[in-house]
């Protein structure tokens, strides 16, 4: 049983940010509750005030902006997995979303909640990192944007200020000719390893590659060494499966935990990277 709670219902992101500033550490931002209520039930967070952000229209936006996507922080995983917007160059995001946790978590859990909780064993941040996504935060001085890579700073740590709320995620369209894939592996409810790969193809060869790996360390990271090595390779070579083991995994900060030892995770990450790249190459070849 949780202690007494007061639930606030701001109607704008500015109101929500002001509530955070005035209520301080007694308050938590609340949307689906799938992470927050667990923390509260375990006694790890003793909040007496919840700021329910589900009634803020800007946080419920899901749409196209230019060639890119705008995803409000309070959009649920279920809404994302069912959205026709997550197709074409954004299909890997749908591929990722439809396997987040389980059908019940996806019905209530939100993208913003997932990113702000920053549990390392999670998929969305990894996939969005491959897209060079940005987050937009509302605070006392209005909005500020920063790259997702600068937002997720560590295990359960983000750059979100104590007087800010996450408003939306902006996903720029990758260059024309880009296709991708997301691959995950896990024995438990949360993933052990997740890899996102995007390949841009020109004349049957890779002109640019983006590979992000998550869950194995404090925060998802890109693999620039592997990305550089892929440039120029024929799509058919990548589609047949490249050995990604020397793609920079040895230098990564990998955590040993209940999901497995660090060496094991490096190995699984390399295998998943190879598979994600093969799928991306096959799709890029079909699209070209």
């Amino acid at each position, binding site marked *: 049983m*949780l202690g*007494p*709670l007061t639930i*606030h*219902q701001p109607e704008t992101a500015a*109101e929500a940010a002001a509530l955070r500033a005035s209520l301080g550490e007694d308050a938590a931002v609340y949307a689906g*509750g799938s992470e927050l209520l667990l923390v509260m039930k375990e006694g790890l967070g003793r909040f007496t005030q919840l700021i329910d952000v589900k009634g803020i229209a800007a946080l419920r936006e899901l749409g196209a902006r230019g060639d890119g996507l705008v995803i409000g922080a309070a959009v649920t995983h279920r809404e994302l997995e069912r959205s026709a917007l997550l197709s074409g160059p954004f299909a890997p995001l749908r591929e990722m979303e439809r396997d987040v946790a389980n059908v*019940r978590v996806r019905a209530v859990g939100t993208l913003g909640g997932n990113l702000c909780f920053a549990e390392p064993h999670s998929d969305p941040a990894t996939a969005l990192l491959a897209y060079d996504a940005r987050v937009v935060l509302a605070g006392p001085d209005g909005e500020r944007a920063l790259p997702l890579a600068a937002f997720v700073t560590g295990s359960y740590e983000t750059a979100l200020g104590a007087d800010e709320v996450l408003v939306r995620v902006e996903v720029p369209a990758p260059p024309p000719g880009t296709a991708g894939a997301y691959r995950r592996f896990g024995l438990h409810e949360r993933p052990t390893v997740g890899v996102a790969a995007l390949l841009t193809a020109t004349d049957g060869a890779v002109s640019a590659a983006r590979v992000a790996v998550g869950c194995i360390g404090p925060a998802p990271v890109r693999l620039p060494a592997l990305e550089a090595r892929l440039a120029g390779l024929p799509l058919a070579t990548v589609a047949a499966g490249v050995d990604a083991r020397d793609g920079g995994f040895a230098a990564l900060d990998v955590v040993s935990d209940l999901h497995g030892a660090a060496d094991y995770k490096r190995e699984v990450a390399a295998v998943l990277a190879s598979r994600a790249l093969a799928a991306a190459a096959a799709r890029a070849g079909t699209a070209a």
Partner: protein
Amino acid sequence: MRPPVGPTVRLALTVNGAPVEIDVETAALLLDVLRERLGLTGTKRSCDAQVCGACTVLLDGLPVSSCTVLAWEARGRELQTIEGLAREGRLHPVQEAFLEASAFQCGFCTPGMILSTVALLAEHPDASPETARAWLRGNICRCTGYASILDALRLAQRRLREPAPWP
């Protein structure tokens, strides 16, 4: 800004087709209100962390984990529990299929399993075995090994497609 609510609140919602008004704490979990206040003990607490599915209920037709949803979230919405599936003394086709296929042993996961199946077949009447397995991945059974549950699902799928559908 709307006024804050709590620490108690009056909820009006529909439970198994009937209107319900009840005063609850804003901190109350839906599962506790169902079991302790409304006497609907078919909904089970097991993992208490949204992993096992034993506490599954349908909120506006969608499966949610009542152990990790505030009762307050059910305000103005339609809630369905295992107790509300039978109509006029007749079990729901999914319940009948579970009986026929002997799709349970201890039965603790069964209410959640059945409600998840009902929601799946409402959204995907022609769900492939892959879709069914992906949907039910979040419902854990430690007795059956799942094969009989998937048999029941297929049986229910056929029954629900028959010319005289469930009312």
